[in-house]
């Protein structure tokens, strides 16, 4: 069974063309549902849209603020780094100017200068003097570099050209990262010489650490080739290659948007440190910084979705409930209208039958009395040769009178019950009375009707006329079903007994055509009929209404092609819940129904 077929309201597939049905329930449901959904969801959707745009605006502002923050941080750190380098370059420039070549060329003197330098400025590892012949004249430091020839090295040539040099970071002999600052000095008497110092990159790391970055951010230094000059937490070890392409060299700091290898957005800040091959790089992950914004967005979306679902469910149920109640009330109204119409017709037929019976009974009484008189007269005379034949003829007349009389009395018996009256009823006798009407019909249709009553079956308190109509309707349907059924000869078995809880049961089982499963649950619905033009669809619905009114129950079981069993269960003692004479005017002279 599909979800829709389970959710579908009962009125959805009902025919809308009943002449007495004044409302198209499907249309009513749609319009009510649509209006309610529109009114309820419009504010939510508007709120969601407004919220979405406000959120987007705030998100963009936050993104922009993040860009500014990256720009601000790299600017400040670049200035610190540039100052750090400039400070050390200036210190070397001061030394090279303040001391003469012989002083600097004296290793002991140079060692004192180096000691003072280390005391005043941190980070210096060694200090050496290189004369114009390219040879290291004096050296103070951990290595034996005195006499080393630097003439062919690139940095030497650059110093000669620019007057100073700041090298890339390299590992050196002791395998720790450091870089070189070299300063050239020219004098009139000695040509030129170069003071060269090695600086530990630990000081660069300390300066980067002062940036106090978020856990989502990373900062490090790269050279012009993109090789990391300091270690990075997230983008590789020192001297490894930075994976992102570098921006074209510009004087100003740059902030660019990029994507990580995993596709996450990144903010990259580049700040070139003037007078060095170094570029400060800062990497920020906005998705982590703005994660709570994303979470807020998801929460808002979930809240809106949950609200929409809740509204739809509530409106669905409310609308369905409301329209179903209207539909049920309309069905009841139609059923009552048709029952009134139907019972009024039956009442007219009943009155007509009573009138006919009256008109027949009077001449019948005369025929009866005349025949009786003839019988009286001939009985007193025993000499007539025709006496026997005469008496036989009179007897035949009187028997015929009795038969007609029985018919008219039955007609009057049914016509008599115009009001609900509770009386003691023997169900077996009641069924016999009803069968009295159907005997000829059953004989004509070659249907055998058998009645089996439980010995000592108790009487019940109920309305005789109403019950007569109930059983007449069911038996009429059974006769029709048997006549059209595949099982011949037709058979109807009536069982009268009590069930476990003491209530009386009249089960009427036929071997007729049976009822299709899809029709079985609808046989008691008003206007439901399988007889086409010949059925009104009211017989069984009236039957159902009467039985319920009298405090009983009527149930049906059927197998297609095998037959149908109606079970009427009645309480033994019952006062009708409402004795409405208008609604209870069942006369029982006609029957129609679902089979």
């Amino acid at each position, binding site marked *: 069974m599909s979800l829709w077929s389970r959710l579908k309201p009962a009125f959805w597939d009902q025919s809308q063309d009943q002449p007495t049905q004044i409302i198209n329930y499907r249309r009513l449901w749609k319009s009510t549902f649509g209006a309610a959904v529109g009114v309820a969801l419009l504010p939510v959707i508007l709120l969601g849209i407004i919220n979405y745009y406000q959120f987007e605006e705030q998100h963009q502002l936050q993104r922009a603020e993040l860009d500014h923050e990256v720009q601000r941080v790299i600017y400040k750190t670049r200035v610190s780094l540039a100052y750090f380098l400039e400070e050390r370059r200036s210190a070397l420039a001061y030394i090279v100017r303040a001391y003469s070549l012989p002083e600097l060329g004296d290793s002991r003197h140079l060692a004192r200068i180096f000691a003072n330098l280390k005391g005043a400025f941190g980070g210096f590892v060694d200090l050496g003097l290189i004369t114009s012949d390219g040879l290291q004249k004096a050296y103070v430091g951990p290595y034996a570099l005195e006499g080393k020839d630097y003439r062919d090295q690139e940095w030497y040539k650059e110093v000669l050209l620019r007057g100073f040099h700041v090298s890339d970071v390299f590992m050196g002999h002791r395998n720790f990262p450091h870089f070189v600052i070299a300063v050239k000095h020219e004098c009139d008497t000695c040509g030129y010489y170069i003071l060269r110092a090695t600086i530990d990159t630990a000081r660069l790391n300390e300066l980067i650490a002062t940036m106090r970055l978020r856990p989502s951010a990373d900062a490090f230094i790269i050279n012009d080739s993109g090789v990391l000059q300091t270690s990075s937490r997230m983008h590789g070890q020192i001297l490894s290659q930075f994976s992102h392409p570098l921006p074209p060299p510009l004087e100003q700091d740059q902030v660019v948007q990029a994507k990580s290898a995993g596709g996450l957005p990144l903010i990259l800040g580049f700040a070139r440190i003037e007078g060095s091959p170094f570029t400060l790089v800062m990497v920020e992950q906005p998705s982590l910084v703005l994660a709570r914004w994303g979470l807020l967005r998801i929460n808002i979306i979930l809240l809106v979705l949950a609200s929409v679902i809740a509204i739809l469910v509530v409106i669905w149920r409310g609308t369905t409930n409301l329209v179903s109640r209207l539909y049920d009330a309309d069905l009841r109204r139609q059923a009552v209208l048709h029952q009134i119409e139907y019972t009024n017709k039956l009442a007219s037929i009943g009155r007509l039958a009573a009138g006919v019976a009256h008109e027949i009974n*009077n001449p019948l009484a005369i025929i009866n009395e005349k025949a*009786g008189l003839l019988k009286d*007269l001939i009985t007193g005379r025993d000499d007539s040769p025709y006496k026997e034949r005469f008496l036989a003829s009179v007897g035949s007349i009187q028997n015929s009178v009795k038969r007609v009389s029985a018919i008219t009395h039955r007609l009057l018996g049914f016509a008599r019950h115009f*009001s609900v009256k509770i009386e003691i009823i023997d169900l077996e006798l009641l069924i016999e009375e009803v069968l009295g009407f159907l005997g000829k019909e059953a004989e004509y249709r070659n249907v055998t009707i058998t009645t089996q009553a439980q010995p000592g079956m108790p009487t019940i308190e109920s309305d005789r006329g109403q019950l007569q109509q109930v059983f007449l309707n069911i038996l009429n349907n059974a006769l029709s079903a048997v006549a059209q059924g595949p099982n011949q000869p037709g058979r109807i078995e009536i069982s009268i007994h009590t069930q476990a809880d003491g209530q009386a049961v009249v089960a009427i089982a036929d071997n007729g055509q049976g009822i299709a499963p899809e029709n079985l649950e609808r046989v008691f619905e008003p206007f439901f009929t399988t007889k086409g033009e010949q059925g009104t669809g009211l017989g069984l619905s009236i039957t159902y209404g009467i039985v319920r009114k009298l405090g009983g129950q009527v149930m049906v079981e059927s197998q297609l092609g095998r037959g149908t069993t109606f079970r009427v269960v009645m309480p033994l003692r019952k006062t009708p819940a409402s004795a409405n004479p208008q609604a209870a005017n069942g006369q029982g002279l006609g029957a129609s129904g679902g089979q």
Partner: protein
Amino acid sequence: MRVLLVDDEEELVTTLSERLALRDIDSDWATSGEEGLRLALASHYDWVVLDLKMPGMGGLETLRIIKRQRPDTQVMVLTGHSAEDEYEAVMRAGASHYLLKPLDVDDLIAKMQA
């Protein structure tokens, strides 16, 4: 026992009267409520057998007057048309029996003699 038969069907009352006579029961008959009432009040009858639906004075009215003026006279009502409310009205007015047509004369006599 004297019996008065009142019915607008003359054939019925005359035949019934004759059958009663054959059983040694003395009876008179009338074909209207007015005539029946006059006879009932003029002399004594043990039983009045009264049709309910008659032109002019109906059986119920005749019954009420007879029972008011001759309370010792017993009345048996005959009808061709039985109805619940009619039955109750007749019994409340003092009728002893309420019988449906056609009737059995021996049953009628048995009820009178009971």
